[in-house]
C-alpha cells in the first residue's frame, strides 16, 4: 500500500482510536469505582479479618519503613540545605526550622510517603494478587468457602488506609530530624531552639487535615493495587502489566487527589 494511502487511512482511524481509548478509560474507571465501593462496604461489615489486617500492616509497614524513612530524612536535610541561603537573602534564616516542619507536615511528608508506598507496596500487592489469580489460588480460596474479596482485598485496603498515617508520621519526624543536621552544622543552632521553632510553628490545622489526607491516599493505593492484581488476566505477562499499571495509575491518582484535597483543606480549614 502506498504511504499516502496508508497515512490517509490512519488519519481516518484517529477518531475511532480516540473513541476506543476513551471507552477503555470509562470502563476501567467504572470498574475501579465499583471495586472501591465494594471495599468500603466490606470495611464496615462484620466479622472483620482483624488478624489478617494486622499481619498485612506488619508486612506492608516492615517493607516500606526503610525506603520511606530514608526518603523523609534525606528530604528534610535537602530542604534545609536549599532553603537556608534563600531565606538568608531576606534575613529570615532563623525561619528554616519552621519552613521545613510546615512544608513537610502539610505537604511533602504525606505525598512523598504516598508515592513511595505506591511504588513499593502498590506494585507488590498487585503482583501478589495477580499471580494468585493466574495460578488459581484465588479460586482455591473461594472453593474453601471463604470470600476471597474480603480476605484478600478488604484486609489489604484497610491495612493501607490505617498504615499510611502512621508511616507519614514517622516520615515527618525523620524529615525534621534530617533538617536538624544543616541547622546545627551550618547555622550553629542549638537543638532546643531548633525543635522549639520547628514544633511550635505547627498548628493543629497543619497537622490534622494532613494526617486525614494520608488515610485517603492509603485507601487509593490499596484499591488500585488490589484492583489491578485481583482482576489480572493473561498469565505472567498480565501480572507484569497489572503491576506496572498499578504504580502509574496510583501515582497519577494520588497527585490529582492531592491537588483537589489541598484546595479543599485551604478552603475549609484556613
Amino acid at each position: 500500500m502506498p504511504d499516502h494511502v496508508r497515512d490517509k487511512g490512519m488519519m481516518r482511524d484517529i477518531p475511532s482510536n480516540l473513541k476506543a481509548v476513551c471507552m477503555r478509560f470509562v470502563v476501567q474507571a467504572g470498574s475501579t469505582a465499583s471495586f472501591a465501593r465494594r471495599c468500603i462496604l466490606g470495611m464496615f461489615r462484620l466479622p472483620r479479618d482483624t488478624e489478617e489486617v494486622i499481619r498485612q500492616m506488619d508486612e506492608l509497614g516492615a517493607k516500606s519503613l526503610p525506603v520511606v524513612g530514608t526518603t523523609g530524612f534525606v528530604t528534610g536535610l535537602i530542604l534545609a540545605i536549599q532553603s537556608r541561603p534563600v531565606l538568608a537573602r531576606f534575613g529570615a534564616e532563623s525561619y528554616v526550622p519552621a519552613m521545613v516542619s510546615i512544608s513537610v507536615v502539610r505537604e511533602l511528608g504525606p505525598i512523598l510517603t504516598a508515592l513511595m508506598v505506591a511504588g513499593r507496596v502498590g506494585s507488590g500487592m498487585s503482583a501478589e494478587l495477580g499471580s494468585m489469580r493466574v495460578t488459581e489460588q484465588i479460586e482455591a480460596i473461594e472453593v474453601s468457602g471463604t470470600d476471597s474479596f474480603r480476605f484478600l482485598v478488604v484486609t489489604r485496603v484497610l491495612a493501607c488506609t490505617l498504615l499510611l498515617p502512621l508511616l507519614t508520621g514517622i516520615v515527618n519526624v525523620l524529615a525534621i530530624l534530617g533538617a536538624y543536621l544543616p541547622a546545627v552544622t551550618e547555622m550553629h543552632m542549638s537543638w532546643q531552639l531548633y525543635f522549639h521553632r520547628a514544633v511550635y510553628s505547627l498548628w493543629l490545622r497543619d497537622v490534622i487535615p494532613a494526617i486525614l489526607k494520608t488515610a485517603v491516599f492509603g485507601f487509593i493505593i490499596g484499591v488500585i493495587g488490589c484492583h489491578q492484581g485481583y482482576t489480572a488476566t493473561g498469565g505472567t505477562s498480565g501480572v507484569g502489566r497489572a503491576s506496572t499499571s498499578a504504580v502509574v495509575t496510583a501515582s497519577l491518582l494520588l497527585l490529582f487527589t492531592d491537588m483537589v484535597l489541598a484546595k479543599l483543606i485551604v478552603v475549609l480549614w484556613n
Partner: protein
Amino acid sequence: MELIEIRNLCTSFDGMPVLRGVNLTVGKGTTVVILGTSGAGKSVLLKSIIGLMTPDSGSIRFDGKELVGMESRELYTVRRRMGYLFQGAALYDSMTVRGNLEFALRRREVPEDDEMGARVEEQLRLVGLADAIDKTPSQLSGGMRKRVGLARALITQPEVMLYDEPTTGLDPVTGREISELIQSLQQQHAMTSIAVTHDVACARIIADRVAVLNKGVICFEGALGGMEHADDDFVRQFFATA
C-alpha cells in the same frame, strides 16, 4: 438418590458456545468421570458446579437446591460441603504445607491448635507426605503438589469431591499412584465424586460411570467398557486411541 442434577447447561465465552445443553446426574456415593479432549469444556463444567463460573442458562441442583443464581453467602455455605482439586493444585505459595491445610479449617471453625495439628498430620499421612509438613509449595514436585492439594481438599471432610484433571502433567507412574490414592480415599470416605480428565487410565481406576463431553454436549454416558461399542464415532475413537 441423585445428589447433583445438571439440566440443559449452556455457557459461552465472547459469543463462542462452550457448553451447549449439558445434562448429567450424579448419585450419592458414586464417582462419575467426565472424559473429553482438551478445550471440550470439562473444567468449565466443573467450575460451574462449584459456582466459580456462572452459566448462561440451565440448572444445577445440589441436594435439591438450585445453585445457578444462588446468593453468594448461601453459595459459600454450599461450597463448604464440597472439595476441589485444581489442575495445578493451586497451593497457597505464601504458606507452608501445614498452612495450606490449616487455612480452610481456620476459616470454618476454630479447633484447638492440638486438634488441628493432629488432623493436618493425619491427612498428610493418608496421602503419604507426613514429612513435607513444613515445606513450602515451591519445594514440592508436581506429584507431591497434587497430593497436598488432595489432602487440603479432603481435610474438611467434604460430601462431594471435584477433581480437575488429577493426573495431567504427571508421568504415567505418578499418575497411576494419584489415581489409586483417589480411589482408596473415595472408598474410605464414601464420597460422591466428579472428575474431569482426558486420561482413560485414570478413569479406569476411579470411575463408577463415565460421561463423554464433545462439542459442548454429553454424547455418551455409561460404564467405561461401553465406550468401545458406543454409537458415537468420537466416543469409540477416543476410547481406541487412549
